[in-house]
């Protein structure tokens, strides 16, 4: 009983760490503009809209975070092997990974932005100085929280994977959850803030991103301020729920039915989430209603 209680406590702690990691990951990727919405940041100068938005999407979020978390985990693992204190090893590992992230961000910004030279998009050195350190700070939070969560899974819950491998697995999952949940909010709600709320962006409007703020030109740091109110927490909840339920169902139900208990619990949890999703979908249809009548829609499409 005591062991199960301990396991559930660790699951809750890992879930909390994952929530922080997810929120920091999404905010970092929005400040650095690393997700799919960066297609618009890259496109804008080609359409004549020169801007001051950071641009470091030379890799998707999942492989990038797979690398950084695995790197932090690998360094921490090596330090622990020579008897370093675990917390110190995790901090040093995360710091090393963040330096790699900083190099990645710098070279990616310079490379991607320089490639737009023929469209008269300047490389702003002040952006490089001010925004890079902010993305690094957020990346540190995301990496440290994830690698600590991986450490707990191995040391406290007895998962057989070594720390670096665990880092790859959960780093990629962190990037996948964060980019899937957070991207639309940054892409539609922030970059196209001047388009009507409650509708997708017309394809013809691509590239016309918002470039000006209340005073002067919009900075990527403001994008982090905006998305940390919606996409960041949503990504955090997403990754936190994934980690918590994955651990919780295993710890609590694995002893039942010779291991099948955790599987059955997983099926039940999936069905519960499916029902919630259907409720959300129906709620949206009933509350917001159609954009036009069912009869008019096919005619409009035919005319187009």
């Amino acid at each position: 009983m005591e062991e199960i209680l301990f396991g559930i406590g660790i699951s809750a702690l890992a879930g909390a760490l994952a929530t922080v990691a997810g929120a920091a990951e999404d905010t970092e990727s929005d400040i650095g503009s690393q997700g799919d919405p960066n297609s618009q940041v890259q496109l804008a100068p080609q359409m004549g809209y020169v801007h001051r938005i950071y641009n470091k999407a030379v890799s998707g979020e999942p492989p990038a975070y797979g690398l950084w978390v695995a790197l932090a985990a690998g360094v921490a693992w090596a330090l622990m092997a020579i008897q370093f204190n675990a917390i110190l090893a995790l901090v040093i590992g995360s710091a090393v990974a963040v330096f790699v992230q900083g190099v990645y961000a710098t070279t990616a910004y310079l490379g991607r932005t320089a490639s737009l030279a023929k469209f008269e998009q300047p490389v702003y050195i002040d952006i490089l100085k001010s925004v890079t350190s902010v993305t690094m700070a957020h990346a540190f939070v995301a990496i440290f929280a994830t690698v600590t969560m991986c450490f707990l899974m191995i040391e406290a819950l007895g998962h057989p994977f070594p720390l670096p491998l665990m880092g790859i697995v959960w780093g990629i999952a962190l990037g996948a959850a964060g980019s899937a949940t957070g991207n639309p909010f940054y892409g539609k709600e922030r970059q196209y803030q001047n388009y009507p709320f409650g509708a997708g962006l017309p394809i013809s409007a691509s590239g016309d991103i918002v470039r000006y703020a209340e005073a002067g030109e919009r900075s990527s740091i403001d994008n982090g301020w905006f998305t940390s109110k919606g996409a960041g927490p949503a990504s955090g909840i997403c990754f936190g729920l994934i980690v918590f339920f994955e651990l919780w169902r295993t710890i609590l139900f694995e002893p039942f039915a010779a291991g099948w208990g955790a599987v059955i619990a997983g099926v039940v949890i999936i069905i519960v989430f499916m029902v919630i999703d259907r409720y959300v979908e129906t709620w949206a249809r009933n509350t917001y209603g159609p954009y036009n009548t069912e009869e008019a829609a096919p005619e409009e499409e035919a005319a187009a």
Partner: protein
Amino acid sequence: MSALGGGAAGGEGINPTASLIALVIVLVAVAVVFVVYPAALVPLIGVIIGGVLISFGVHFVPVGGAPAAMGQAPGIATGVAMLAAGGGLAGLFGGAWAAEFGIAISLAAGAIGGGLLMAITCLMVNVVYVYAMGIPAASGKVDKDPITGDTFPAYKSQGTEGHGLPFISYVGGVLGGLFGGMGGTLIYYELLQVYEEALPSFLGTTEGMTTLAVSLAGIFAVGMFLVAAVLTAYNITGTIEGPHDPKFKRWPRAVIGSSAASAVCGLFAILLVVI
């Protein structure tokens, strides 16, 4: 025909010559293992089946890519291979944890792990679309949801191909996670059996063998997962909405390709410890 005068890209057809070459590659890999280390024959077939499961599963995952990030197209706003990898590797985590209970529970745990990640991610995608952006789900490929019967044309905002995740795409995402998680776990489990048996005699010691076997099997499973998922992403070419998307019919081609790729990767993974 494309603008450059070449043949049209994509298509659903299967190229008989390429399929034959893939089959020969699979058979050669199986034959080599049979000659060099017969005990690994069944694991290699398991690895190939794992690759096939991953490849088939990736077709279910609703991926909208960059257009989805602006609410211009339905699906999840990230890459095909990346999202599938996220789901499949979360499955691998669960499957590896349950490996001590035997293959059936391990595979089921892997499948559920992948399905759970996709179920939560897809839900949060819809939550963000609905509550943070005020946009209802609408498919661009079909007028009616095959499961719920919801109609979509009136719920598509002007100038877009649809947005969000309709219920059929949600179910597709969960199924993709289940297949991916199961495939990744099968590769891990089979390679683990080979390594646990072959490593002690290969290195002449049993000290630290379990950790080495788990690490090698795990990293090969991650690598092969990405091989199968990326191959499939090329087959899908860009975005897919799920099982109702016409592109879904292309799956046999990716499955043939992935079986050949998994056979070669599996062969090298096995030869690593027996030669």
